[in-house]
């Protein structure tokens, strides 16, 4: 197992290298050159010259690349042209909000997606199955941001059941940055429930696409596994239906679902950009969304790098978790 993890870590290095090259190339092709782009509106002739020197723009390209890597490793992404704060500080501040939202959405998607997909497969061709398949198709066809507005319009504006935006109304004491957790830590249950209520709508909007994808993969996978020879073997042993379903069908059917869940984690980042903008949820996505309008390149650069890093990490975790559930990967070979 340890050998497997180490091997995967080594395999991640070339990927990281290519990604860093891509971001570097992106930075080089920004309008007006990287220095001007990174300085934004505050640029002056000498500030550009200073940054040019700092980035080594007058030096050969590989020196520039090495300096670029150096800046990444020291977490020096410059200051945001929108807020004037260091980008690193902004990210640190917004990180918990996005994790909280993303985790909630993922839990919702998995908690509902797997049972729906499983039941649809079991009742293949039934009304329930058709309705599920159609609603997942619609779910993917709805622009996420519109769904967000729709939910907000119905549940916040029309029925006034849930708060329309933001992370909390009262504001809990800030300890971890996770609004729900902070309330619990201080024993302030009102703050926790307030934070949870604020979470419902954005999490639901963000969960739609992963939910739809998980339903479809689960359904297809269960259908595949039900046709497998070993399920017939299980039947020939006279096992009871629940045992066959749980131990033989579901356990195998969930393998591809696990991969999908992992990959959806990466996609949540993209969905978060739209959802957080709709619900004024001050997380990483909101940082990116507000940064785009102003072409806040230091912020964009840092967030793109972060997304790429998260992608590599998530894939690594998916591989490892896959190895844990599937003995064929874990043992031997």
């Amino acid at each position: 197992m340890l050998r497997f993890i180490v091997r995967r870590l080594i395999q991640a290095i070339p990927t990281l290298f290519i990604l860093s090259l891509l971001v570097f190339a992106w930075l080089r092709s920004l309008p007006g050159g990287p220095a001007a782009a990174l300085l934004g509106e505050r640029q002056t002739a000498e500030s550009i010259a200073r940054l040019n020197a700092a980035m080594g723009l007058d030096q050969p390209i590989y020196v520039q690349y090495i300096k670029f890597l150096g800046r990444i490793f020291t977490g020096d992404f410059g200051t945001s042209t929108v807020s004037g704060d260091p980008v690193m500080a902004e990210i640190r501040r917004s990180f918990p909000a996005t994790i909280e939202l993303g985790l909630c959405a993922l839990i919702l998607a998995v908690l509902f997606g797997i049972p729906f997909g499983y039941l649809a497969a079991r009742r293949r061709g039934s009304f329930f199955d058709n309705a599920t398949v159609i609603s997942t198709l619609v779910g993917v066809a709805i622009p996420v941001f519109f769904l967000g507005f729709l939910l907000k319009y119905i549940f916040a504006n029309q029925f006034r059941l849930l708060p329309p935006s933001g992370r909390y109304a009262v504001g809990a004491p800030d300890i971890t940055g996770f609004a729900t957790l902070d309330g619990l830590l201080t024993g302030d249950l009102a703050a926790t429930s307030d934070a949870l209520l604020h979470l419902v709508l954005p999490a639901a909007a963000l969960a739609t696409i992963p939910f739809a994808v998980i339903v479809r993969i689960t359904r297809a996978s269960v259908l595949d596994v039900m046709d497998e020879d070993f399920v017939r073997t299980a039947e020939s042993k006279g096992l009871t239906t629940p045992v066959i379903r749980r131990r033989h069908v579901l356990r195998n059917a969930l393998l591809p679902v696990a991969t999908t869940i992992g990959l959806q984690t990466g996609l949540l980042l993209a969905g978060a950009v739209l959802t957080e903008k709709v619900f004024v949820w001050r997380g990483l996505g909101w940082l990116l969304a507000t940064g785009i309008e102003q072409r806040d390149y230091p912020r964009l650069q840092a967030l793109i790098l972060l997304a790429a890093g998260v992608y590599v990490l998530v894939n690594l975790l998916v591989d490892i978790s896959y190895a844990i559930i599937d003995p064929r990967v874990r043992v031997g070979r």
Partner: protein
Amino acid sequence: MPLLDVRDLSVVFKRKGTAPFTAVDNVSFAVEPGQTVGLVGESGSGKSVTSLAVMGLLPKRGAHVTGSVNFDGTELLSLSMKELRNRRGRDLGMVFQDPMSSLNPVITVGRQISEVLQRHRGQDRKEADAGAVAMLDQVGIPDPARRVGEYPHQLSGGMRQRALIAIALACRPRLLIADEPTTALDVTIQAQILKLLADLVRGTETAMIMITHDLGVVAGLCDEVNVMYGGKIVERAERHRLFAEPRHPYTHGLLRSIPRLDAPRGEKLVPIKGSVVDNIPWEGGCAFAPRCPNALQRCRQVMPELEPEDARHLRCHNPVQPAAVAEGRAER
């Protein structure tokens, strides 16, 4: 009284948009306790479907089963799903063709054996695990205590088939159905597995149905052989009789198309012409007639019945004459 008595068993597959397909057509045979009966035929002859029908493993939708399958006084076809599940694995065991795909890849081999013991013997997990080790030992897997904890992909093909046999025999069923148990294996392993199966059922009350396309398998193992063609039994005889004097032209052809070590030098292998066609029209004639060297006008007009003749059952208007068999040998 036979242990298993199959009467007029028919299986018709009906799929939307396609013509109904009769895979098994009024098949009757019986298996005595301790006896080994072979079902032989080319692929598509209905032998595997027959065994799945006996086990009740055909899909509920699309497969229409009629007739009677009487197991020790119980009509299996009219049992409820629950009652059937109580029988499967306990009274009836089955070994499948492809041991790789027939074993669950994410569960240890031991667990796949012990779950049967837990289900039917009411053993707790610990007893059942010990039972699994004993079963693996019995089917000749070396170092069973270590192997129980391994996954199917860690075993060799032959060992996987042994594990599958261990699963089927875990509860000492009274009837074991082996569906082409050696087809997916290397030739060298095939003989070992056949010997194992023979050893395991010999001297016990366990009856066995051996389903195969390979007459060589039947030769060493079966007491009685049923040859199937196009969903029907065309010849049934005691093993030695069948091999010595095949009367149905199809059986005769099958025997002539396999190489034999004891054949006279220079003897040629004679293949049967053509192949099994999809839906065989038994209506209005013999289904084998288009490929049959002995076919008469009558064979294309009247369907032959399975009738006792010459210490066997035979479905043929113009069987191969015993003398001709001997002559065929002598000629070469």
